[in-house]
């Protein structure tokens, strides 16, 4: 079989009429024409491969960019921000010379196709983003959404995803400290597997993805490059490029956490010895992304010899090598005199490391293969100057009808007995039930710094053993609220995560997000997206918590059916001394329960409306971000000054859900009294935002009340921690044993 001639730059210039498979690679006609215009000739096969992956929605954010700009434009003044949007992850100052980097990403589509590896490599990818900033990863979180809990396919997807996250994260030695698990039929064909990671470093250790200094070497290290994870690989392996290739490659990557653990340790050791000028991990779009971004962000150009890339499969074509998404690889830029030491450290950890190129004083990215130049591009046109779309968007015509379908008009329980039955049904429902079966498959203890982990309101990690400085992270999102009103829904997600950080005693500092939506080609979805981004940007401005980075996942859609718009918001907080953290569990009998905030009749999108009536309609709860800020200040002060011993945020499921969780975790019951002016149903099940319950030791009651009074935060005494039951006086009483049975058996019985 004769090989087609190598498609060099020269060959491309000489053969302008060769047809390239740009459409199969996912480029639109005008995008391809733009590539030709940029290059002044047709691209080579390798150049086409690079442009097609880098200009994909996933890498270029071409549909979302015009909206995401608001996060920068509306960014609040915040001295803590050290590195903002655009790098691998944002970095914030947490004091005492420490900087923290964190980010949430999606791995939705691969996790549906192959749950274990899809989820595992999602963890791997976000962890490499964090290492690439110069930080030691210290914890992971996983916000997850699946189809209906009782759907047969959920039994395939969920256990695989959970095992994959555990299998990878546990083996890396990263404690898993939080996240969410939500079930809804809208995620049936499109589960959302988001993964977040926190890393810690000293200020002076921050590293950026930047190739500078002509003559500096480009080192590829980590796993060998294989044929896994090539997007659109079936096309690449088709006859157009070379007909002597093996065909179809799997599009889902396969993870090797052991290799990643070695990569973490050897990278951190190289950082510690100041051997690294710039660094980039290889994630989506693999070497195409790493080389073009490093070169584009730096001051010079870059020359790469692709023949030097260590391969798992010697038959890979240069196009495939450029597009491969083989996991556990990183790319470092190192000064020539430090290369030997860098390679020594890699050898110590048994990590393969190879010099594949160098930084040049030009401004081109040039890639060679078998002596021929197969790529000669301005790296900025690949990495940063991709297409930008102003996709049409329009408020869907069904939105009014949805909002008019008021959940407040749903039949409410008519007797105490019925209320009791509904409460029991609620706490046993898949979304409100204990997720212990899932959480116990993750290591919470490794690294020995975990102060709080799920089911606490936020995860908390100690970062300094001497001073007790710590960080907290909470992730929240409610697709039902966002479906009813995307602007408010995004703000509710922000408010909840912000509140969850504050209930543990930490001060909210910065935000990352993972925006999960349907197809941007549907104007209704695009409207949801635009509204959610606007809501989140406005909310962050008002709360003074900047968005430091994040991720957009579009096309979460099967046929015409899009998922609920699901902005997942992560809020990072800082606490001066983790000894002052506030847990969810009731600590001591006799302590007084206070409800902070205002309770209104708000049931739109509520857990009650879903569990009891299978209903979604009306308006989501109102957002008052000034109130959220005040509530957070009170919770933080009360924690710092020892006025409260436990606190729990109120969100889906309302007050009764929170009380039941605190009671079961503490093994102590509660006696509740319905406050004046509220009916029992609204008191227990409304989902008004801006609320929390706290347990106040009797000795602190006066001081606590004075503080709330002086600051103008409504604080209502609603009961006392007591006994072996949760009792709502004059209504019903449920024993802890009965509640535990209801709350803790649902998930295991559905999934095992």
């Amino acid at each position, binding site marked *: 079989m004769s090989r087609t001639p190598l498609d060099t730059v020269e060959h491309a210039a000489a053969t302008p009429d060769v047809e390239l498979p740009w459409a199969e690679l996912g480029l639109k006609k005008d995008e391809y024409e733009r590539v030709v215009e940029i290059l002044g000739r047709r691209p080579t096969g390798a150049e086409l491969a690079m442009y097609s992956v880098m200009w994909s929605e996933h890498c270029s954010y071409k549909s979302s960019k015009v909206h995401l700009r608001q996060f920068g434009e509306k960014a609040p003044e915040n001295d803590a921000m050290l590195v903002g949007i655009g790098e691998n992850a944002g970095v914030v100052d947490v004091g005492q010379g420490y900087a923290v980097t964190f980010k949430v990403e999606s791995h939705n589509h691969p996790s549906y196709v192959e749950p274990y590896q899809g989820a595992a490599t999602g963890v791997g990818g976000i962890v490499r983003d964090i290492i690439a900033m110069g930080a030691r990863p210290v914890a992971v979180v996983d916000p997850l959404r699946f189809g209906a809990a009782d759907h047969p396919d959920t039994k395939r997807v969920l256990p695989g995803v959970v095992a994959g996250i555990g299998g990878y994260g*546990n083996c890396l030695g990263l404690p898993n400290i939080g996240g969410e698990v939500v079930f809804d039929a809208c995620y049936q064909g499109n589960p959302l597997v988001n993964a977040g990671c926190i890393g810690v470093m000293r200020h002076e250790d921050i590293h950026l993805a930047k190739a500078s200094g002509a003559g500096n070497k480009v080192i590829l290290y980590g796993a060998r490059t294989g044929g896994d994870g090539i997007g659109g690989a079936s096309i690449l392996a088709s006859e157009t490029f070379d007909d002597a290739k093996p065909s179809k490659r799997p599009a889902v990557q396969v993870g090797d956490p*052991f*290799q990643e653990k070695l990569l973490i340790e050897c990278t951190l050791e190289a950082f510690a010895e100041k051997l690294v000028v710039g660094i980039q991990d290889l994630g989506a779009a693999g070497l195409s992304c790493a080389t073009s971004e490093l070169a584009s962000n730096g001051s010079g150009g870059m020359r790469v010899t692709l023949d030097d890339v260590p391969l798992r499969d010697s038959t890979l074509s240069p196009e495939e090598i450029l597009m491969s998404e083989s996991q556990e690889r990183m790319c470092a830029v190192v000064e020539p005199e430090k290369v030997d030491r860098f390679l020594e450290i890699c050898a110590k950890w*048994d990590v393969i490391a190879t010099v594949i190129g160098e930084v040049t004083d030009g401004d081109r990215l040039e890639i060679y293969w078998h002596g021929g130049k197969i790529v000669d591009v301005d790296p900025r046109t690949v990495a940063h100057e991709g297409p930008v779309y102003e996709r049409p968007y329009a408020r869907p015509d069904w939105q009014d009808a949805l909002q008019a379908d008021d959940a407040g008009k749903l039949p409410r329980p008519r007797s105490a007995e019925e209320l009791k039955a509904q409460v029991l049904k609620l706490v046993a429902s898949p979304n409100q039930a204990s997720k212990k079966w899932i959480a116990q498959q993750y*290591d919470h*203890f490794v*690294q*020995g*710094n975990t102060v709080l982990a799920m089911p606490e309101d936020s995860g908390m990690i100690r970062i300094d053993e001497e001073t007790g400085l710590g960080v907290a992270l909470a992730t929240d999102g409610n697709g039902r609220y966002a479906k009813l009103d995307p602007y408010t829904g995004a703000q509710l997600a922000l408010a909840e995560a912000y509140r969850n950080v504050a209930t543990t005693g930490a001060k909210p500092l910065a935000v990352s997000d993972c925006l999960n939506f349907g197809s941007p080609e549907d104007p209704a979805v695009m409207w949801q997206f635009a509204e959610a981004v606007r809501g989140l940007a406005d909310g962050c401005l008002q709360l003074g918590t900047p968005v430091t980075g994040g991720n957009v996942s579009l096309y979460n859609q099967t046929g015409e059916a899009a998922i609920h718009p699901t902005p997942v918001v992560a809020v990072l907080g800082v606490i001066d001394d983790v000894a002052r953290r506030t847990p969810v569990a009731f600590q001591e009998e006799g302590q007084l329960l206070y409800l902070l905030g205002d309770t209104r009749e708000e049931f739109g999108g509520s857990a009650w409306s879903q569990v009891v009536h299978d209903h979604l309609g009306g308006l989501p709860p109102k957002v008052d971000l000034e109130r959220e800020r005040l509530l957070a200040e009170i919770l933080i002060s009360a924690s710092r000054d020892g006025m409260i011993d436990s606190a729990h945020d109120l969100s889906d499921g309302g007050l009764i859900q929170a009380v039941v969780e605190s009671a079961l975790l503490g093994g102590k019951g509660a006696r509740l009294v319905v406050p004046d002016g509220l009916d029992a149903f609204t008191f227990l099940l409304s989902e008004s935002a801006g609320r929390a319950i706290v347990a106040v030791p009797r000795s602190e009651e006066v001081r606590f009340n004075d503080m709330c009074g002086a600051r103008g935060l409504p604080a209502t005494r609603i009961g006392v921690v007591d006994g072996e039951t949760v009792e709502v006086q004059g209504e019903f009483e449920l024993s802890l044993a009965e509640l535990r049975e209801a709350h803790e058996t649902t998930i295991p019985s559905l999934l095992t």
Partner: protein
Amino acid sequence: MTARIGVVTFPGSLDDRDTQRAIRLAGAEPVALWHKDKDLKQVDAVVLPGGFSYGDYLRAGAISRFSPVMGTVIEQAKAGLPVLGICNGFQVLTEAHLLPGAMLGNDHLHFICRDQKLRVENAETAWTADYSEGQEIFIPLKNMDGRYVADEYTLDKLEAEGRVAFRYLDVNPNGSLRDIAGITNEAGNVVGLMPHPEHATEPLIGTGRTDGLPFFTSILKKLVTA
């Protein structure tokens, strides 16, 4: 004078730094040992920490057992050097035949992370002297391959000789035979267990208990008074 206690780092070790911290909290001096290095740096005792050495892709502990450092550890353990294997370290000790039996995958086939209740069955080993026999303690457990197995003869012998050091109480989390959580060799200098005492050494961290600290104070007292 304090004792120097070595902690081996294999590729894929995860709890090595945590173990060093626990040793420090107990008042001893932790010494980092490297798997490729035969030299034990004249330490007075060695801990093989938890993790997934070499990814545990073959059989947990099966490759680490052949590392250069283990050659020396095996030799010196037979001569009386105190050695503690935690989780993956326990697996390495059985693979190295310093302790009998073997570890299989958990019977429920899932990774499990929980605060585990144990009963101290032998408070006379180098690593358990600060406990009392029959004492009930909580130590975090987290593993994929924690199901201890051995033939009936070996199990009977372990029981008869008082070499079952720890037993799971309330819940057997992985299907271990006779609820065995940890064992010791005949001389009492080599102890292995699946739960992680290094994760139960500070009141605020993890489960908030310090039930694991006596492992490290036991060995310190023994070494300092020896």
